[in-house]
Every structure is written in structure tokens, then in C-alpha cells.
């Protein structure tokens, strides 16, 4: 008898509807309003690459050891350097990074011995051209500059 009543009065369906109606309260709204509300990404987030600069003397931290290029599974980093005769060290000339093929795995960041190459929290890296996705040294040091939206 109970079963028949439950069947006629759609009890099981109403139980489900109760769950849905409970979530109508405004405090349960889960939508993030992007681009006004930027998502807060984690510290370890693997986003856009950046070549770090020594804050004291403004020079690049990269020592041109080429370890990042060797570590990359896609072989998309090209590091060229020239040897400085006075200090007998290698100095970085160009550093090319192809973000269109990058899979943001972080192996280059892990390989860098001086923490010069870092994957930052920037994720807005869209460009209008394919060539714009190949970043040179200046782009890498400054980072992408996405358009800021103001509402």
C-alpha cells in the first residue's frame, strides 16, 4: 500500500526536486564572473614561462647551461650564448621558447639549476598569430600582458 502511494504521488521524484530546490539559495552560487573576478591560481601553477632577472643588478639569472632545452620533451627551447672572454663565462644572447607546442609539463623548470626559468601563474597567453606564440627573450622576461578588463 505504501509503495503504491509512493508511486502515485511521485515521492521519489519530489525527493530529487527537494535537493535541487535546496540549492536555490544565493549563497550556493558557484559561478565565477570572469574576467572581472580573476580566478586565484595556486602558487605552484604551471603557467606562462618567465626568465627571471637578478633583482640586485638587473641582469638575467640564466647561465646558458642548456639544461632546460635538453629536458624539454618537445625540444622547443633554443638557447644561444656567447662566451665572454673577460669573465670566461657564457652569456645569454637569445632564448626562444615556443609556447604553441609547450605542454606546460614543468620539466624545464625542474631542470634549471639557478631557478632562472620559472613557470608562473599567468595563464592568459592568447595571441592573434601563430608567430606570436614563439616568445623571445624580451617577451619571456616581461611576461604576457593581457588586456585588463574594467567593467
Amino acid at each position, binding site marked *: 500500500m505504501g509503495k503504491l502511494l509512493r508511486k502515485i504521488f511521485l515521492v521519489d521524484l519530489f525527493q*530529487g526536486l527537494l535537493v535541487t530546490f535546496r540549492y536555490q539559495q544565493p549563497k550556493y552560487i558557484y559561478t565565477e564572473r570572469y574576467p572581472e573576478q580573476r580566478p586565484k*591560481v*595556486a602558487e605552484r601553477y604551471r603557467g606562462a614561462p618567465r626568465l627571471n632577472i637578478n633583482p640586485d643588478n638587473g641582469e638575467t639569472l640564466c647561465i646558458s647551461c642548456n639544461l632546460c632545452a635538453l629536458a624539454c*620533451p618537445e625540444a622547443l627551447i633554443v638557447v644561444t650564448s656567447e662566451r665572454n672572454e673577460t669573465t670566461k663565462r657564457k652569456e645569454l644572447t637569445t632564448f626562444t621558447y615556443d609556447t604553441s607546442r609547450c605542454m606546460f*609539463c614543468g620539466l624545464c623548470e625542474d631542470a634549471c639549476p639557478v631557478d632562472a626559468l620559472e613557470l608562473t601563474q599567468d595563464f592568459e597567453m592568447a595571441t592573434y598569430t601563430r608567430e606570436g606564440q614563439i616568445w623571445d627573450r624580451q617577451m619571456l622576461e616581461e611576461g604576457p600582458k593581457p588586456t585588463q578588463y574594467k567593467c
Partner: protein
Amino acid sequence: MPDATFLDSTELVLNMGPQHPSTHGVLRVILKLDGEKVLGTDCVIGYLHRGVEKIAENRTFAQFNPYVDRMDYVAAVSNGLGYCLAVEKLLNVEAPPRAQAVRVILTELNRIASHLVWLGTHALDIGAITPVFYCFREREEALKIFEKYCGARLTTHAFRIGGLLYETYDGFEQDVRDFCAMFGPKVDEYEELLTNNRIWVSRLKGVGILSAEECKEYGVTGPVLRAAGVKWDLRKAQPYSGYEKYDFEIPTAQNGDTYDRYIVRMQEMRQAVRIIEQAVAAIPEGPIMGKVGKVIKPAVGEAYVSIEAPKGELGYYVVSDGSTQPYRCRVRPPSFVNLQALDRMVRGGLVADVVAIIGTIDIVLGEVDR
């Protein structure tokens, strides 16, 4: 399948094409129909074939690690675990206990995330639109933990050969505990929405029955096998990465139909929470990386290691010829083998059942095609 002619009015060949909202990826199913009843199917796959096994032969062992996540992209951490375990077996090292505990936590979180995607998309295919929002909302919490730990939500590259690279972040244990506390009641909510719902039951009960014998013949593993009554789980049968320390049950069901697979996967989510709670209560201190040299060069040999991925038995058969690159890395994908059984499961059903069955096998085309 025999050719159907235009004059043959009883049989219709219909293409459920690669672009279809319910096929969980680019899967093409050619249906041979008699009205609405399905007489036979033919799956055409390979639309997402990326040649991952060929790529493996041209990358070093550590460089191949990120590619592995991209096969079953819904549950990337499991793929990484399987690959790292296979290479560690070849190297004959074992990850230290702390690494193993953290691996278990992340893998079980990943199992929950994968089952949430399954539940959301399966319910959506059947027609229940609400669960997908709730499932993805909970999945966000799990993905936030992945992001905080390794930096990426979906293609995590969380594990390294020999252990872990990243130490757990401050607040990892608290986040995981909060997730477990939050998640238990949510599973109850999903059950309230679906389990006794008459529409759900009538759509799922009796559909796509695959008995235990048929499962074993077709090599089907994972929740599909457990729903048919076979109490077998690789985490209990051949434990890896410290699973023998945790106390959990293997949910099974009797009939082997779609409704039972739903019940089995819901129970698996609960059991996964149980495992996580046990693991996070007792993460041992110690190193996180085993004794692996900087250059990974295993001895000549081969090994087959398989794990219980959320979809079934995921196996890696790695052959090494002594160099730094795998000579052959074969991935045994659970979705590929499970999809073979689609033909047996849909015989005699209706077209709407085909959609339900594809959802219940829980395939990810990235894994089917590699």
C-alpha cells in the same frame, strides 16, 4: 556487417557519427537497426590516435612522463602512477613510504574525480541534467588540491620515476580532510537524486547486461566486471604502492546491468574516501624520492605492470634495451578492451540504450585511441 540495400526495408544502417554529444569523445558507432531495435554495431575508432607509443620510443623515460597523462585525460594521475610503477619495476627500485602514501591519496582523489565525470556525463546522456553541475562542482575541489600540489588540474604530471618531485604543500592534509568531510554527504545527495528515481531505474535496469563469464571472455575489467559479480580488484589482488595497508571493500553487484554499474561506482567513490581518510591520517615522514640516478637507464629487459585505474586494468608493458629511451612502451588501455564488449551489450536493445551503455562502460577516447 552485411551491406544493406535500399530495397531492404527491415534493416537500417545508421551512423552515430564521431561528432555526437553522447559518445564521450570522437567515437563513431555504425548501428544496424530494425526500426528502433539494434541488431548489431560496429565501432570505428582512431579519431584521437596520436601515436603515443611511437612517441615513447623517441623520448627518454622521464621526458615521456607528461605524455602519459594525456591518454586518459580525465584521470591523469592514474596513468602517471602506472607508468612510474612500470619504470620503477624495470629499475628495481621502490618509492619510499611517504611517496607511496601521497601517491595513494592523489590516486584515490583522481578516482573520485573520474567517477564524478562519469556520473555527470552519464546522467546527462540519459537526460538528467542536474547531476552534471553538482558533480563538476565537487570535482573542482579535487582539482584545486591537484593544482595546489603539482601545478596543473588535469594533466597533472604529478609523479616522477622513483617517487615524487614536489613535497606536499602546507595545508595539504587539512585540504584533503576537508574534502573527505565535504564529499561524503554529497554522494548521499547524488543518490537521493538518482538511485530511487523511477525514471533512472527504468532507463538503467536490465539494460546492457554482461554476465561474469562474458566479461572474462572479453577481458573486461574494472567496475563493469565487478558489477557482474566478480569480486576482483587489482588493489587487493596484486597490491601496489602500499594499498595493502589500507582497509577498504570491493563493491560488487549481482546482475551486471547498467544500474548495477552505477551502484558499484557510487560505492567505489565512498570507498575511495575511506582510503583517503586512512592514508592522510598516517602519512609517514621521510624522503620522497627513491634511489634513482639522474639518468634513468634500466637494464635490458621488460616488465608488465598494471594498476586498477578508475576504468579498469591499465597496464604498461615497457621494454628496455639498456639505453635512456624505452624501446617499446605498450599501454594496455582498459577503455579499448571494454569497448569491444559494446557489441555484445547492445544486442536487442534500443537506440537509447546504446547511449546509456556507452556511458556506462565509461570510455575515454584518449585512452581508446592513444
